[in-house]
């Protein structure tokens, strides 16, 4: 039986696109806002649309923060998308919100000399040789929508970099924790390829 992918519903984001892409690849989904579902999960996606405040408040009011951190401490498969990448860090300049603090570093606002939000297809320069990058060409295009970016301490975690006003991590990996600043579920065939790699390599 195909694995069931748990998708966290923190009450602010539109989860439909992520669910559609996961289902399209042949995996079942469980969209949940219950702490007990996170405890039993074997793979979790934290999608990110909306604001950091809504995401962090949403996790807090649903008491999802602690079970999510417990889950991550076990080194089980996890994919954070966009804000789902940003909230893994210590804090963000977006409303000065304190985040999950799982990764060292801060989230900063894109500089004023570029149009914000960064919306559209941008190239990702790949680094290293990770199974999640299998079959993906260096310089492939992915779809971005964000105004903030992660500035992380440990650059060994970076699998891909993108330039837009600043150079920032587009893909991060730490064990089976994978996070992308772009939206793989909205990045066409290349995005689906990336998601398929994640499921095949990490589950």
């Amino acid at each position, binding site marked *: 039986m195909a694995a069931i992918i748990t998708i966290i519903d923190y009450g602010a984001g*539109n989860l439909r*696109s992520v669910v559609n892409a996961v289902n399209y690849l042949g995996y079942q989904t469980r969209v949940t806002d219950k702490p007990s579902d996170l405890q039993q999960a074997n793979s979790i996606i934290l999608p990110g649309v909306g604001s950091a405040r809504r995401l962090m408040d949403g996790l807090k009011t649903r008491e999802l923060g602690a079970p999510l951190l417990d889950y991550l401490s076990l080194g089980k498969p996890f994919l954070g998308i966009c804000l789902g990448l940003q909230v893994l860090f210590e804090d963000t300049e977006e409303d000065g919100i304190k985040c999950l603090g799982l990764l060292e570093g801060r989230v900063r606002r894109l500089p004023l000399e570029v149009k914000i939000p960064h919306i559209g297809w941008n190239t990702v320069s790949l680094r290293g040789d990770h199974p999640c990058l299998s079959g993906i060409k260096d310089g492939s295009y992915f779809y971005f929508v964000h105004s903030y970016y992660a500035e992380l301490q440990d650059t060994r975690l970076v699998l891909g970099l993108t330039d837009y006003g600043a150079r920032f991590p587009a893909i991060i990996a730490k064990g089976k924790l994978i996070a992308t600043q772009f939206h793989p579920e909205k990045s066409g065939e290349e995005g689906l390829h990336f998601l398929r790699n994640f499921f095949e390599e990490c589950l």
Partner: protein
Amino acid sequence: MLTKRIIPCLDIKDGRVFKGTSFGSLRDAGDPVELARRYYEEGADEIVFLDITATIEEREIIADIVERVSKVIFIPLSVGGGLKSLEDIRMVLLAGADKVSLNTAAVDDPGLVTEAAEAFGRQCIIVAIDAKRRPGGGWEVYTSSGQKATGIDALDWAKKVSTLGAGELMLTSIDADGHRSGYDIELTRAVSQAVTIPVIASGGAGGPQDLYQVLADGKADAALAASIFHYGLYSIGEVKAYLAAQGIPVRLS
């Protein structure tokens, strides 16, 4: 490098794709799901669905179209036309849209832009501006499918909505729309330089050179076109190949 987006626009009426001229007569251009899939395969960067009837019945038809399209197409989908409230926006987002565009409703109630940005994130709120040249210079905002003059200056309005919470602007020249004789370059450039959010140019595409002009000279971040794609005058691939040859950064598959 961030690429310029090429966005086919599907005007929907009675569940079919239509294309009109200068907000006037209409021609049937096909099935929306089939067309959307074709554009996805040809390399469209995004797809826009516009409800040109702006009725409650049509909104439900569009929600159903978006629901079907979003299961087989993995690029951003926007829906606009007749959305008036947070509930309307929520309905199309839940159906699978990634963004919505607000036009008349934003003019009638600018607070809706802020409320929508706070509720759903500004990245999914596009404000659509239909602008018409004034005889004495400048451009005026029109609403209600280009029928109603508002007296509002288009540049002032663009700046205002970008501070209210719009994540992007979709700028249509009423003078140029449907004529296939080029975008209003001057309007696009003026708006694009007046705001710090991305601008999608719309109205007037007749060929690849028009898209080139509006992206290069008009400083648009994206170009929207309808009839040149619907009637098979040019494929999205042909347009992108032309733009790439002219030095415009585009996503080529």
